């Protein structure tokens, strides 16, 4: 099986970019990644592309061929859709293509454009990741779904809004200086706790923003990297995907995310590591409670024990295991179809040493990316390691 190396990475600025088309955004991210890789465009054999609601926001289906032209490549291309995990599943397929031995060079990326429609329209589109019959029709929104999980967590394990607020404060702090992040500013615990309620017990600052942006990576086989004398210090050594019921009501537990655990188990096994080996993580913090659930699902904490991980400093930049040094979805932003790839972009830079927050993890060799769709009905986990 071919080892998978990350040859190049790139993201656009994330934020409010209503006038920039999806093809423009993805074209820029792909160009940055391809230039970073020093791989000739002609060598790219496949495009794996993630996007969630472009059929609504841009009235544009069949986006994959469009994005090959934007990237200046002629490779076979497929769009992957798995809600907020669209980028993660595109990445899974890219990794599998290289491991299979059939493909040496893959361009993988994602894009989302949502500020060109009203917030109501974007919200309606994002809500399509829920079960239409049994959730959306009863009024469940995505903040509402995570609020249902947050209240269930508080009832089962305890925890406070202040514990969750510490997650938001941490991730905003991490985003300062990250030039592609949407929010590069500090917020306080008071800011979070006193923010308007979106769906109790969650407030506005417990939620990630609506974001436009794109990310891309060039993945190559180990043999291609060697033959072309590429500088590829970071490997993807583990890749896992998990699935759960779409509707919360079909799950045994509202406080655990088995799709994350299934994805992580596969990824850890492939990489031959345990959760204790992970030096830093980018996890899917679409809401503050989601970061808590992710850390428990990944096995870094027992159920009920990650609620104060940010408040106690365990997961801050100077903690035992920094989480979301990029700012996470909360502050870096969440261009849905791009997010799973953007996590790998950020981790690659952190491990290579060219990220604004690299100094927080100078000796790091193992990183983990966790991307989730819906209320974690879909999840992917990728393990990145610095090559020996």
């Amino acid at each position, binding site marked *: 099986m071919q080892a998978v190396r990350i040859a190049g990475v790139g993201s656009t600025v994330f934020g409010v970019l209503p006038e920039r088309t999806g093809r423009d955004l993805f074209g820029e991210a792909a160009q940055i990644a391809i230039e970073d890789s020093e791989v000739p465009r002609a060598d790219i054999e496949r495009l794996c592309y993630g996007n969630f609601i472009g059929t609504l926001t841009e009235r544009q289906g069949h986006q994959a061929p469009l994005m090959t032209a934007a990237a200046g490549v002629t490779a076979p291309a497929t769009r992957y859709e798995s809600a907020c995990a669209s980028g993660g599943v595109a990445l899974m397929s890219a990794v599998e293509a290289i491991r299979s031995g059939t493909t040496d060079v893959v361009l993988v990326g994602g894009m989302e454009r949502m500020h060109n429609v009203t917030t109501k329209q974007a919200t309606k589109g994002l809500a399509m990741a829920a079960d239409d019959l049994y959730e959306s029709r*009863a009024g469940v929104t995505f903040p509402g779904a995570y609020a249902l999980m947050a209240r269930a967590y508080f009832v089962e394990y305890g925890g406070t809004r202040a514990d969750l607020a510490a997650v938001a404060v941490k991730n905003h702090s991490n985003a300062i200086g990250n030039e592609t992040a949407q929010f590069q500013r500090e917020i306080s615990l008071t800011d979070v706790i006193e923010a308007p309620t979106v769906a109790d017990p969650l407030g506005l600052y417990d939620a990630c923003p609506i974001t436009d942006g794109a990310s891309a990576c060039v993945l190559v086989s180990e043999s291609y990297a060697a033959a072309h004398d590429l500088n590829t210090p970071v490997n993807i050594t583990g890749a896992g995907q998990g699935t759960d019921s779409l509707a919360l009501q079909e799950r045994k537990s509202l406080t655990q995310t088995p799709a994350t655990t299934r994805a992580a188990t596969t990824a850890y096994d492939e990489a031959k590591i345990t959760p204790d080996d992970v030096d830093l993580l980018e996890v899917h913090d679409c809401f503050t409670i989601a970061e808590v659930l992710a850390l428990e699902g990944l096995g870094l904490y027992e159920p009920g024990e990650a609620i104060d991980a940010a408040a106690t400093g365990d997961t801050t930049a100077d903690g035992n295991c920094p989480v979301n040094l990029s700012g996470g979805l909360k502050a870096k932003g969440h261009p849905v179809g791009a997010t799973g790839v953007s996590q790998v972009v950020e981790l690659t830079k952190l491990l290579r040493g060219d990220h604004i927050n690299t100094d927080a993890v100078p000796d790091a060799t193992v990183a983990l990316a966790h991307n989730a769709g819906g209320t974690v009905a879909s999840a992917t986990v990728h393990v990145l390691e610095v090559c020996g």
Partner: protein
Amino acid sequence: MRAQRESSYDDLLDALAKADGYYFACPAGHGSLPPQHVCPTCGDDELTTEPLPDTGTVVTFTKIAVPSPAFSGQTPVVVIADFGPVRLTGRFVDELDRLEVGSSVELTIASSPDGDRHICVELASADAVEC
């Protein structure tokens, strides 16, 4: 109501409207809701139709301040409650002050302003509330 029925789902809602709700059970005792050809938990295709318990128990709820477009101008409260071997999500249409985790609730049916029929939840001891 929407012009287009959703078979199985609307059949269940029709039954719930007559206080005659049901779920599917597999031989292993897993519960599921229509439409379902096999048990989603174990894949068994021997499903029987069983009556839903008259009351359920609230396991979580939220009051949504920023609603979906279908409930624009409202602050819908959504509940997940256990009804025997199945859980159901519904819009709460009773006195919010009396709602808490552990509350006993019953099911009813309503339509959103855009015509989508959906499951609603009211307190078991409450008088019927128009929704």
